[in-house]
């Protein structure tokens, strides 16, 4: 079985792109499923199911989405194996631009859109910098020059990634990405695999439910700004 981790900022078009890619793979009789990781709520399960795609939803609630991902990914893989999927795609929103669900030796994809501005590739952390494939969306609504500048900036941020333009509405480019997915390495179990990058850490009093503001209520891993 193959596993692909897809991550990207909210509204970059991850779901649309994934659906188009899966449609192309379904044409080749492959059974593909999705696990969507989100925080508060998501309607994406309905979107996937409408297309006949097996989908599961995981809501992290008050847990850091990254931590939630890594503590569940193995079970997700087992779910996919039980359902005899050929390929499992995980989808997660990199909410703090630091979130990176990417695993070493597992194909990693970052989806980012042209409308997010040319400086965005610099601001996104390991989710973009450590991805194998960067999919750029919404190219049809910006000018050719902006597309070129944006792709250049992505290349600066992650010089080794393959950069592909995909249109989430027409599906242009999705078939080609599907071909790349098919070539990814097979994964049977994730035990002893490593994340590509460590998770953001906190463990401060607010992690434990503190709501009051003030010096006296701040404990643990607290970082202070330099306002001098």
């Amino acid at each position, binding site marked *: 079985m193959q596993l692909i981790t897809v991550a990207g900022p909210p509204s970059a078009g991850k779901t649309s792109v994934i659906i188009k890619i899966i449609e192309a793979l379904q044409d080749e009789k492959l059974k593909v499923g999705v696990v969507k990781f989100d925080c508060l709520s998501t309607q994406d399960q309905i979107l996937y199911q409408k297309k006949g795609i097996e989908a599961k939803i995981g809501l992290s609630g008050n847990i850091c989405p990254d931590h939630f991902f890594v503590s569940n990914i193995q079970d997700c893989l087992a779910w996919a194996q039980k359902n005899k999927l050929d390929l499992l795609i995980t989808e997660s929103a990199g909410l703090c631009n630091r979130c990176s669900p990417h695993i070493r030796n597992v194909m990693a994809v970052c989806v980012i859109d042209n409308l997010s501005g040319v400086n965005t590739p610099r601001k996104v952390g390991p989710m973009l910098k450590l991805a194998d494939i960067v999919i750029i969306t919404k190219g049809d609504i910006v000018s*050719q020059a902006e597309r070129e500048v944006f792709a250049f900036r992505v290349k600066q941020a992650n010089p080794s990634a393959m950069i592909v333009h995909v249109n989430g509405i027409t599906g242009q480019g999705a078939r080609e990405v599907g071909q790349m997915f098919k070539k990814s390495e097979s994964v049977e179990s994730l035990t002893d695999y490593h994340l590509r990058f460590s998770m953001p850490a906190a463990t401060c009093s607010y992690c434990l439910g503190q709501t009051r503001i003030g010096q006296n209520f701040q404990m643990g891993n607290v970082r202070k700004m330099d306002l001098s």
Partner: protein
Amino acid sequence: MWDSLSLMTLKQLFSKYPYAMDFFSSLPNLQQSEECSVAQYFAAIEEDALQDLGIGRQELLDQFLLFMIQMEKLKEDKIKIQSITILGGNDKYGKSEEIELTIQAGEIVCIVGPTGSGKSRLLADIEWVAQEDTPTNRKILINGQLPDMKCRYSVEHKLVAQLSQNMNFIMDLTVDEFVSMHAESRMLENIEEIKSHIIAKANELAGEQFTPDTPITSLSGGQSRALMIADTAYLSSSPIVLIDEIENAGIDRQKALRLLIDKQKIVLMATHDPILALMGDKRIVIKNGGICRVIETSEKERENLVTLTRIDQKMLAIRELLRSGGQIDNILLDIQIT
């Protein structure tokens, strides 16, 4: 490469490779001056800062080297594309296309066919440099040969620039800043010169004048398209330009196409506009997802272009009259249509 870079001071690095500044711009601003060496700079970044950046020290170094190598590559001259060849596959019903079509640099080829007939698929096959690995089983050759497949994913070898109908600008920049930004991403040296060419040319195509300090978001539809076409002609590294119809309003379309072919672009245009279609050297007719015919524009058709252009100008004149608040009482079609 590391051996030569590591001993340079940051100052030397930036003066020799100005683009390297882009890499450092997102890195923590160390207290040290630009006099420290590249190696010292990387060694001195604190562990906490690396954590915040979301990258390890070795990975950051690797990325820096890769960045420098890739940016240097952008400057290298690319293989000149003289021609592309489409080797036919099959249509939706599996019927063979039986075609071998070569398009030369500086040629305009139009693509005609009803909506949903497979025009986009043909354009996508060319963009992806299909190698019998798309639903149509077409194969694309570059300069008569199998291409280097890295053009599929690499920014610097992208074959196709696309000019679509809705060409919005979203950046909050002036025309001058915008074109500079594009030129810088191409690693060009004579930026000022190219910039003035582009702005002058765009003004020529648009008719309505704009200045370098006009914000791009306030350009009119015609001005935006004109700027886009001029920018693509001068600055896009892609040898093939795909055009999804050019609207008639506010832009001299014949001049726009001529500019692109003067720059030795291969122009592929999906259009049903008779003037644009006849400006092409050939027309590809698509039916049921396949190329069913290729028509060479005949002498007779070219002659008709003159009449069509006159009709077009008449239409434009009437539109202009309407715009300026005039009345359209009589339309004298003083055109001999034979």
